């Protein structure tokens, strides 16, 4: 009998853990109320603001999720992730000895540790000057805005070019264009329209629209026919690099035998026969009656403050949203937020504390349950936005949780 693992949440943490666990022989169920934040993201792997974890470790305090994960675990998690992405024909570029500095749609610089090949091709460390493409009818990217901001920070943008696309009945989203571009016939018509604009262009940055599930083929074909080096810049959500990764991981999960139960909200169920020491699964609110899904182990991958992983109540209590585990929070709510929106927010550090076997535990290190694990944004102690360590925590803690749960 193979071990069973029930994972709650299908963001990067949940999907990555599901694939890992299924490939280690577990029977895996992934249960989630809706789809996670991954499809809204840039698709890169941020490990630390400057991208270099060795440098960062000095500034990591005790209790930071990354400082509790050994270096080998972090490296192994990243390497497994890169292999999976490669397998899904979504190759990532990761430079172990340096960071990637990538252009953003707002003309700022995104420092990251690993990026999809099409984004990595836009590295600002490549001195070749680039043009930016102005795609007609795409509201979610402004080449002019990005160009003026880049120039203000001394990035050499050669200019912008107009790239017309055939008129449609409505405003296009990036994923609409991506789907259209998967059709070779549609691409042919674009080559005809775009080639006259390519004079003097050697390197061209486009909003991320170059294909969905077959982005590698689309990217290669377009580079060849247009005769320029291309790169992509992530746009407003839904953002193609995140969407591609999400779809690829879900496909890998399903192909590995993971059962995805999409839609229900869940509450944790404690095993009554264990004197409260073990969990038995979750109770799901389905379209009909409540249904119980049992499992030998449960992994919380429910995310942080903005993803529904925890809830706060009028009496000031903060609890994880599945099992109601208590989270520490300042008594005065004034202390939950920073004076400015753009500062590090104290509430973003709220989250679960784990024991050495990756189980949520109390202040004295005693696990609440023997078979309940947690990973990703629900872990406390980090401000993943300002620290730029979001995916680093997701991947490494997911890896560690799966190892612990199946040990």
């Amino acid at each position, binding site marked *: 009998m193979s071990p069973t693992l029930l994972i709650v949440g299908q963001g990067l943490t949940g999907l990555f853990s599901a694939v890992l666990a299924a490939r280690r022989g577990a029977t895996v169920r992934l249960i989630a109320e809706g*789809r996670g934040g991954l499809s*809204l993201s840039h698709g890169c792997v941020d490990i630390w603001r400057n991208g270099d974890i060795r440098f960062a470790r000095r500034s990591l305090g005790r209790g930071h999720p990354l400082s509790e994960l050994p270096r080998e675990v972090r490296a192994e998690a990243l390497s497994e992730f890169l292999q999976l992405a490669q397998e899904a024909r979504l190759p990532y570029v990761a430079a172990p000895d340096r960071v990637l500095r990538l252009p953003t749609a707002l003309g700022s610089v995104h420092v990251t540790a690993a990026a999809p090949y099409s984004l990595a091709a836009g590295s600002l460390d490549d001195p070749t000057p680039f043009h930016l493409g102005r795609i007609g009818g795409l509201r979610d990217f402004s080449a002019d805005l990005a160009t003026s901001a880049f120039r203000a920070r001394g990035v050499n943008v050669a200019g912008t070019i107009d790239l017309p696309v055939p008129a449609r009945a409505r405003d296009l989203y990036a994923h609409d264009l991506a789907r259209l571009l998967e059709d070779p016939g549609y691409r042919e018509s674009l080559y005809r329209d775009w080639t006259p604009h390519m004079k003097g262009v050697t390197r061209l940055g486009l909003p991320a629209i170059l294909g969905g599930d077959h982005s590698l083929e689309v990217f290669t074909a377009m580079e060849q026919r247009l005769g320029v080096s291309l790169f992509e810049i992530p746009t407003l959500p839904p953002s193609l690099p995140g969407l591609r990764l999400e779809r690829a991981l879900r496909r890998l999960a399903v192909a590995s035998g993971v059962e995805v139960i999409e839609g229900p909200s869940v509450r944790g169920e404690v095993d009554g026969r264990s004197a409260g020491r073990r969990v038995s699964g979750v109770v799901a609110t389905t379209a009909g009656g409540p249904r119980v899904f049992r499992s030998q182990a449960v992994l919380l991958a429910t995310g942080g403050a903005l993803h529904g992983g925890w809830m706060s109540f009028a009496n000031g209590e903060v609890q994880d949203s599945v099992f109601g585990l208590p989270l520490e929070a300042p008594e005065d709510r004034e202390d939950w937020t920073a004076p400015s929106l753009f500062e590090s927010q104290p509430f973003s550090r709220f989250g679960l504390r784990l024991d050495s076997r990756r189980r949520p535990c109390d202040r004295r290190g005693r696990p609440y349950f023997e078979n309940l694990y947690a990973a990703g944004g629900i872990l406390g102690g980090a401000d993943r936005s300002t620290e730029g360590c979001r995916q680093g925590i997701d991947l490494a803690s997911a890896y560690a949780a799966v190892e612990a749960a199946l040990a």
Partner: protein
Amino acid sequence: MTPRPTLGSFAESRGVTPRPNVTLTPGPSPAGRERGAGVRASLAMFDSDLCVKCNICTAACPVAAVTDRFPGPKAVGPQMARFLHPRSPSIDPSVAWCSGCGVCSRVCPHGVPVAEMNIISKAAIRTGWRQRLRDWGLARPAVVARWSRPLRPFVNAALRSGFLRTAADRTIGLARGGPLPQVAAESLRHRRADLARQQPAQPGGAARPRVAFFHGCSTDGYEPWLGETTIRVLERLGVEVEIPPQGCCGLPLQSNRNFAAARRYARENLVGLHPWAERGIPIVGTSTSCTLALKHEYRAVLGLVGPEVETVSESTYDFFEYLDQVLADQIGALDLRPLALRLLYHPPCQLRSHRIGTPALRILRRIPGLEIVVTDAECCGVAGTYGLKSELYDVAVNVGADLFAQARRTSPDLILTDSETCRWWIEHHTQVPSRHPVEILAASLGLEDLRPAAGLG
């Protein structure tokens, strides 16, 4: 003294008719007096404030992906609702492109009933008389089966006649390429009249598990063998099967914008099924759209409230969900024969809207020898009766294109899917025989051989 405000009175003050109550006494229904009043009859619009406009639903919508005439579920749903005055629903007509597959509600991380809002909005759309004629028939598969049974050879020949189908396409907009089933010689209710009950039988001595079988009008009128197979499997598992009074679930009426008639159908079913549900006897069906109607649409789209709706909803199970949740021990003890088959399994959008995952896979994976690939298409395109309409047919085919391509790539022996309209549609467009998963289970139990390909009109 002013009465204490309730959600209902708040709705009234906003010009919204509160949800009509279900009464199990005969008489004109409160909903019967309204026509096309779907938007006013629903409170779903108040949930639109939960929408943060993240566009996760827009990116997942299989219809918006293939036609730019549909702006996407968010744009016509929660976003539009913010501009609607409750009393005068100014519906964006592009909501007509929504197929009602429900993907948007299922992927929403904030609990916005996007699909439900759009299905309700669609009910207010007016169409021409030719389309109304067609929709009248598509919305009443049970009536069509009953009326045409005496003339069955002619009806079935007509359904297969290229000439007549072309004529129907040109005149009333019944898509020529949309597969229609053949009317069966005898209905399931006739063939298994021995199981029909008006009330649950008094329990005998042995405490055997019992179910009330909800066959749906498709199994009753077009595919009675599927119902017989299901009953045989249940009986083999030691279950006592009864067939309660029931008619069409009303979902086709709801999809074809006749909420008043859909509510009448719903009410009749609730009267018929409640005695079983009340005694804790599960209501089990093999058609995932009918069981979804009982579980969800009556409450969330038709707006019915009352203890009967709740009890029936919570007692209803998809067939495989029932096996997995209630009969796990019996299933574990079964001696399943190996079947050397390559299968492509497509979980229908309606099954996924149950929010229970893929219970058929949990059971079928116990059968030795089966090689099962799961599709990654959100929807096959037909979405009940959507793909059978000429004006929507091309969109429906394009929605299914990825699934059809996957079928060609993997060249399975059979395609499995739980919903009948999906099964007919996929078989028609891939030319791969398509089966309900219960047929595989029955074959593995040695109860019957896999039947040959069905003839579709």
